[in-house]
């Protein structure tokens, strides 16, 4: 009989792979701890592939004027597509554009798309998202009891506070920090 922790990890792995849980049940003997590690490796592998799968929408996001991109993002795109597109934009170094778009989105929509973001871009989001907006997103995630996603933000924020290395694969912005990082010790700029 599978213990609850292992069952939960199997369910989360199946969700990540977009299959029914019975397709991954053969992994149960690995146990919860190893499954959690496998899920992390799997997520990293998939997020490496998503920019290719979503290249059309990422290209549109790059080319469209912001006055069109923002209403298009808020009214048309499902959260999954928007989350993947923002991740793709950030991963290809277009943080200015991503920041401009994110700043126009309400916290509720950002909470909708947060589960679909590449965890590797969360540190960059701390740089480019206004603190009050980010706080609104985390509050919204907590209200929805989506602790897994809220935890992603908390873990990266803690790493930033303690001087931990940012997640790999994300081009660092050379511009002035604007998000929560602006408030961190040693990161303040200006008077």
């Amino acid at each position, binding site marked *: 009989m599978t213990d609850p922790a292992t069952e939960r990890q199997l369910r989360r792995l199946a969700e990540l792979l977009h299959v029914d849980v019975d397709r991954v049940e053969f*992994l149960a003997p*690995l146990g919860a701890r190893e499954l959690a590690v496998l899920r992390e490796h799997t997520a*990293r*592998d*998939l997020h490496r592939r998503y920019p290719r*799968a979503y290249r059309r929408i990422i290209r549109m996001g790059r080319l469209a004027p912001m006055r069109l991109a923002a209403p*298009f993002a808020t009214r048309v795109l499902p959260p999954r*597509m928007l989350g993947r597109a923002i991740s793709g934009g950030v991963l290809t170094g277009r943080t200015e554009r991503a920041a401009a778009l994110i700043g126009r989105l309400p916290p509720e929509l950002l909470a909708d798309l947060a589960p679909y973001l590449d965890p590797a871009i969360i540190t960059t989001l701390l740089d480019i998202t206004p603190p009050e907006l980010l706080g609104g997103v985390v509050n919204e995630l907590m209200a929805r009891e989506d602790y897994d996603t809220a935890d992603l933000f908390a873990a990266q924020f803690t790493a930033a506070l303690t001087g931990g290395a940012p997640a790999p694969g994300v081009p660092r912005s050379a511009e002035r920090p604007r998000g929560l990082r602006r408030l961190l010790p040693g990161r303040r700029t200006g008077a």
Partner: protein
Amino acid sequence: MSETPDERTPLERRLGADQPALRQLEPSRQAEFIALLDGAADRDRAAAEAELRERLPHLPRGLRLLATATLPRRRR
């Protein structure tokens, strides 16, 4: 200088990971998981497209045309 042989399984190499516990899986099970990995991005994209198609009828005409442009063309 001799190189250390790579003891990792095909699944570990595919994931770019070093997770010895995966070595207890039979090769057929590893291949099964790699197949799930291979199809996952396409399934995600298909789910996103289905979500977008559900929204299309509720959009104003201009936005609907723009949204349709983000979808892949259907093959005849």
